[in-house]
């Protein structure tokens, strides 16, 4: 993945303060001075003063909401969602009634303001949710739990087309270069559905199941809770915007919880392009079973869109890369590129060199403020 430069947390906070002042202060001002203001801009006086006051009151409330978000953004994320809905609806009706000639152009200032703030709130929301993922996607390797190191790692993954195996091979190289020994457990689905190459019918079945998150089961991993591995690395691909069913099945089986509970865990995702949700799903599962996340990496296959997307379709349809032959020169590879592979070796090394935390099991929820403030 590429780590982009983004608008700072501080700017978004102050944009919230700005609309808080505009909404709360502006509406008090409107109620006090609506006669001279509307006279100044040539707008008619409100026909229904009660409704005018109600709208001002609701708009004032959104100002209070924005102020609360300004004061404590991470604790008020749901308020931001309410703000998005409120401002989007206000903007929608402003435009609607303006176009129907029932609203003086003066009121479009508020319509435009709320339309712009709908987008600003959306963007701020995206920055605020799951900031722990931003920290680990930046490349941070977090401190591990305070337990004896055995220099043994366990890999758990399911690779249908070989891309995941390729990625894990590189992580293994990195770990082994730092003195780790690695054991692998490949998830074996109980259903024969999950195989490659596949027919169109099987593809459609896998696709629909992936979209509707229909679970599957895998054969027992047979790893005792008191296993000797001080690090567990799990890899998952993207199957229709989500993590692959066989890997998810590992977490859905409560018997496997002990494999991860209280251990250092890391996540690797490889895919065509949509890595963000599968990564979030994998990490949340790892946390859910008591794993202590120390690092994660997500990689897209190389190439430019839209040919990369169509290369994947051709690959899945034909069961082999570089087909059809007449398109071979433009089709993109169906595995991660050399740069990603090199980074995964470094990732493995960094995992092996990870520090121990002073306080075991520091919740990840404490990390965001440190990472983004």
């Amino acid at each position, binding site marked *: 993945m590429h780590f982009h430069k*983004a608008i700072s947390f501080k700017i978004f906070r102050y944009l919230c303060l700005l609309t808080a002042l505009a909404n709360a202060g502006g509406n008090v001002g409107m109620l006090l001075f609506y006669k001279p203001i509307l006279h100044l801009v040539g707008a008619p006086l409100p026909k229904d003063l009660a409704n005018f006051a109600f709208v001002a009151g609701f708009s004032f409330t959104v100002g209070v909401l924005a102020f609360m978000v300004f004061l404590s953004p991470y604790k008020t994320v749901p308020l931001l969602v309410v703000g998005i809905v409120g401002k989007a609806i206000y903007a929608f009706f402003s435009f609607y009634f303006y176009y129907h000639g029932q609203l003086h152009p003066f009121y479009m200032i508020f319509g435009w303001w709320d339309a712009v703030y709908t987008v600003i709130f959306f*963007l701020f929301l995206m920055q605020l949710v*799951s900031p722990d993922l931003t920290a680990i996607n930046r490349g941070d390797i977090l401190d591990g739990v305070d337990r004896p190191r055995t220099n043994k790692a366990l890999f758990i993954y399911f690779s249908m087309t070989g891309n995941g195996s390729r990625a894990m091979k590189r992580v293994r190289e990195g770990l082994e270069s730092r003195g780790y020994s690695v054991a692998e457990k490949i998830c074996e689905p109980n259903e024969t559905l999950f195989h490659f190459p596949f027919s169109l019918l099987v593809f459609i079945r896998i696709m629909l199941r992936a979209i509707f998150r229909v679970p599957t089961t895998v054969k027992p991993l047979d790893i005792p809770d008191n296993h000797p591995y001080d690090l567990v690395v799990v890899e998952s691909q993207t199957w*229709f915007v989500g993590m692959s069913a066989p890997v998810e099945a590992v977490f859905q089986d409560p018997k496997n919880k002990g494999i991860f509970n209280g251990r250092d865990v890391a996540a690797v995702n490889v895919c065509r*392009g949509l890595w963000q949700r599968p990564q979030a799903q994998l990490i949340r599962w790892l946390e859910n079973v008591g794993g202590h996340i120390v690092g994660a990496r997500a990689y897209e296959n190389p190439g430019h869109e839209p040919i990369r997307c169509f290369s994947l379709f051709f690959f899945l349809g034909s069961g082999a890369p570089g087909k059809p032959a007449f398109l071979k020169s433009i089709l993109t590879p169906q595995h991660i590129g050399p740069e990603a592979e090199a980074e995964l070796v470094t990732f493995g090394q960094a995992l092996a060199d990870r520090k121990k935390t002073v306080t075991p099991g520091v919740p990840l929820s404490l990390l965001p403020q440190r990472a983004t403030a």
Partner: protein
Amino acid sequence: MDIINSFLQNATWGPFKDFLQLMSLPPERMKEWLSFLIAFMILCELTRLALATVFTRSVLAHVTRCLLTFAVQAIVLAAVLVWADYRHPGRGWINLGVALLMYVIWYLAGQLVLLARPDTEGADLGFMTVGALITFPVGIIAAIV
């Protein structure tokens, strides 16, 4: 019973009928439908990207995100093109230009998120192209027929 009858008889479909008319892209109301379609494309894409890292176990959130990857936008635009051509024949090619503009807006909305979050996918040009393969053939057929 009278109260219920009166209640139902006095209900209005006015806004919905007006909205349906608006989606036929009448030339005299261009600002209106353009504003609405732009807002629709932006909100769909921002919702899709906002759902990337949250509600990770929710089937509803996942299906919504899958649908917003291209299907909803592409099918809605295709339906609008057919409906618009049915109501205002002869504007099919102009409407295709409008659809193209919506795809540009869609892309820009996705890329906008890169400004907010450093670890995000942004617009998915690959699946947008798949969407275009739904919208534009339908629009072209509507324009020709």
